[in-house]
């Protein structure tokens, strides 16, 4: 008997016992759906975290250095040192902060009225946007000469530009920050349009405005941008060495750290989490498989007489085994397909509800789940099939 015939018979027998087949499949459906949904969710969560890390700026090293005496500004020294690391480092900027008391004003409109709070103003060099992954959408960025010449210019984040200038081009307009006039020279492209506490709710002025706004001339926070992940690790070690020669524990304090370290630990954490959760969900799939074996054993016992008849009219052991194996594999495969449909829906719904993003099970997982279901059917169907075929025809015929 060929496989096609066995296949038809299997379908017939499954269809003949609809309720039982459906219940058996349910075990597989739940198992497959549990595994796929759990793993997809964790992968989605991971991807979302990684995206956020990246838009904040990957390969970004944050340097904090403060000296209590002996000249407290290390900006120039750090800048020169970074220049000497030009094959590892692509940019460096001081990072200062100013929080305007009355917001950024344009005419009668002030960012103090923004729903989720007034933006932070950053003081940075011409490399600020490079270090923090901002790109110019309109106008121009802060230039080296703006810093050198104490130009009172400002580049707005997308959220701020949208709030202050809903109907006009902000470039060339003058805004007022606590009594100081700044010319808007550009607007950054939005990179985080959906969240309330948006990374776009910001503005940047040249670092030399420190004197005007903060009444200070030195910075203690810096951002160094490395060319790659590997370069980040190397640059951290070098910067640490450089700073330890500059500042000892008596004269001040310094720290060098990168978000990459967070990303890496986050990545290994999610990998572990998907293994654990996938494993737990896998147990339910295993239970589903045992359900298959149970049903196949019952089926074999129930159909002993049928097996006897088939043997009496010429079925070989191989064709009896084939028939029961195909039956188990078909139940599992159909269960697996339904399980995937359920898990695709479940993943989309759970992704929308929990992560507010559109998730789909990956192609690899889809193929894997169906293949695994079929293997499950064959593995758990094998024992009952062997049992069925090992009977002498006359013994099987006596069975009721």
């Amino acid at each position, binding site marked *: *008997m*060929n496989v096609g*015939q066995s296949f038809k018979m299997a379908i*017939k*027998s499954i269809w*003949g016992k609809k309720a039982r087949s459906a219940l058996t499949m349910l075990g597989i459906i739940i198992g497959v759906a549990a595994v796929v949904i759990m793993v997809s969710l964790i992968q989605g969560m991971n991807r979302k975290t990684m995206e956020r890390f990246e838009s904040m700026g990957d390969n970004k090293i944050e340097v904090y250095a403060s000296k209590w005496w002996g000249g407290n500004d290390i900006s120039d020294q750090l800048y020169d040192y970074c220049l000497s690391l030009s094959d590892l480092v692509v940019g460096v900027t001081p990072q200062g902060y100013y929080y305007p008391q009355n917001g950024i004003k344009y005419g009668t409109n002030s960012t103090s009225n923004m729903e989720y709070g007034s933006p932070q103003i950053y003081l940075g060099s011409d490399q600020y946007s490079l270090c923090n992954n901002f790109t110019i959408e309109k106008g121009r960025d802060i230039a080296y000469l703006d810093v050198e010449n104490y130009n009172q210019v400002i580049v707005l984040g997308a959220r701020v530009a949208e709030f202050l200038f809903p109907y006009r081009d902000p470039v060339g307009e003058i805004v007022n920050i606590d009594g100081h006039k700044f010319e808007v020279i550009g607007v950054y492209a939005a990179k985080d349009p959906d969240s309330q506490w948006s990374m776009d709710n910001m503005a940047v002025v040249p670092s030399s405005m420190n004197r005007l706004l903060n009444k200070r001339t030195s910075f203690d926070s810096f951002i160094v941008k490395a060319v790659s992940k590997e370069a980040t690790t190397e640059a951290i070690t070098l910067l640490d060495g450089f700073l330890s020669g500059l500042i000892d524990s008596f004269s001040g304090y310094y720290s060098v750290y990168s978000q990459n370290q967070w990303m890496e630990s986050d990545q290994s954490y999610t990998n572990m989490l998907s293994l654990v959760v996938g494993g737990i969900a896998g147990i339910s799939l295993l239970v589903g498989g045992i359900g298959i074996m149970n049903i196949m054993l019952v089926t074999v016992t129930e159909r002993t*007489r*049928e097996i*006897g*008849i*088939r*043997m*009496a*009219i*010429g*079925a*070989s*052991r*191989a*064709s009896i085994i084939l028939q029961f194996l195909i039956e188990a594999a078909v139940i599992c495969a159909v269960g697996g397909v339904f399980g995937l449909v359920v898990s695709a829906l479940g993943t989309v719904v759970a992704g929308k509800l929990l992560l507010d993003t559109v998730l789909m099970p990956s192609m690899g997982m889809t193929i894997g789940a169906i293949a695994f279901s079929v293997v499950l059917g064959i593995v758990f169907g094998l024992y009952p099939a062997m049992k069925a075929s090992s009977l*002498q*025809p*006359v013994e099987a*015929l006596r069975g009721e």
Partner: protein
Amino acid sequence: MKLIELKDVYKIYNEGMENEVRALDGVSLSIDRGEFVAVIGASGSGKSTLMNILGCLDIPTYGDYYLDNEDVADLTNRELAKIRNKEVGFVFQGYNLIPELTAIENVELPLIYQNIPVGKRYDMAMDALERVSMEDRADHRPNEMSGGQQQRVAIARAIATKAPIIMADEPTGALDSRTGAHVLEILHRLHSEGTTIILITHDGNIASTAERIIRISDGKIIMDCPREEAGAL
């Protein structure tokens, strides 16, 4: 030429134990091609065991069985399945049709195991049904048919492969005398076409229609002669 030859065959259950049963106790017989043999005996005499061994449904504990001059003990499982498929057609007392399948599907089953393509298979099965006048019930399931009709379908299944031997174990046992007679008539017609028939029965009236009578009791053959010499049964 001998089609079937048994040499000193034993079938012993629970051998050596207190509840030892000798279902066949040293049986030797031979049957030629084209014979119509009735095996007669009381229930428990071993006649069904004899048929199971003759039909390769069971294996003897001791002794040799030559089918078509081939020692059955030397055959593999696959070859035994092939013999049951091609050489022997079985008709059982309990019909033994598969309840989920229609009449024609039941008749097609042995042809499926021969890998005969769909179209030809259908024609052969339909032909077999016609020979037992069951062609108009082809799409009925066993539970939609009477006992006599089911037995005729079972005969159709046995003859669909054009097997040279038909073994019938109490084929009329569950039928009333009129339908029983009809089933018997079909067997005689097959015999007249050249098929070897081995009929197992406890009923003397039915056995008396055969050419040769073998009487078995307590696992031993106590009589083996042509009908004319058998006397009253």
